[in-house]
């Protein structure tokens, strides 16, 4: 709770990003690299949660930055840069899901990538954990991953933007091209579905 109002740190972050955008447009060759460093991990996680395929998410992050680079001169600098970047990423993720639904081959490949990724070690496992704790953590991670993947794309999008990316309702409305009422309603349903699917395994 309490992430509703933007913090002084996020205001500072926005000002610094606006400065980087201005520097890039003024021809500073290092500025765009700084923008990439600032957003690449956030976009990777956002797109990954949307499409469920890590390798493809990495490709789409690169594609997002190519689009940002090409169109940055047209970006309205009175608007928030991060919202614009997430909108580009969101559109790419939606296109990916649309293409996947039309192509069984792509769907198969994405499933295979996801399966391969499951073999990676868990980030929150540590070597001092007891085996039963490690088993429980792994089970919980798989449960949560599967639960997010089972949300509808519309619900998953607002859920990830709010819970993982910490976006305000207004920013989510802009990224998803929805009104505030729709954002709140989808978020409420997404949270309820998420909780209902997980609760039986925690009790």
């Amino acid at each position, binding site marked *: 709770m309490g992430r*509703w109002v933007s913090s002084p740190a996020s205001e500072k972050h926005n000002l610094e990003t606006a400065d980087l955008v201005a520097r890039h447009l003024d021809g500073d060759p290092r500025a765009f690299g700084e923008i990439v460093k600032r957003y690449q991990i956030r976009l990777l996680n956002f797109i990954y*949660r949307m499409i469920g395929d*890590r390798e493809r998410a990495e490709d789409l992050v690169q594609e997002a930055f190519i689009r940002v680079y090409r169109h940055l001169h047209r970006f309205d600098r009175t608007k928030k840069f991060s919202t614009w970047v997430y909108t580009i990423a969101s559109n790419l993720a939606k296109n990916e899901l649309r293409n996947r639904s039309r192509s069984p081959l792509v769907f198969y490949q994405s499933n295979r990538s996801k399966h391969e990724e499951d073999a990676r070690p868990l980030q929150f496992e540590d070597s001092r954990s007891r085996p039963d704790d490690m088993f429980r953590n792994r089970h919980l991670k798989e449960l949560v991953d599967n639960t997010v993947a089972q949300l509808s794309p519309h619900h998953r999008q607002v859920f990830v933007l709010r819970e*993982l990316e910490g976006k305000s309702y207004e920013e989510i409305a802009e990224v998803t091209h929805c009104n505030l009422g729709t954002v*709140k309603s989808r978020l409420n349903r997404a949270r*309820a579905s998420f*909780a*209902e699917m*997980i609760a039986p395994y925690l*009790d």
Partner: protein
Amino acid sequence: MPTTLTCRTFRRYFSAWRDGDVAVPTDAMQEHATACGRCASLARALVVGVRVLRANELEWPISRSTPSIAP
């Protein structure tokens, strides 16, 4: 133990409550969450689930260079 909110109302307000919306009757929500095991379980599931998601965020892969647009 009866509470001032029904489960249906609690769940309608729950998302806004989590986001700290001042229009939500916070005391009544807290009271219901304390008294109703089923609603408390859902609230806990959301908190735990989101915590797990955040703890398992991806890092940019070392094997893959940072995206570069430079010609």
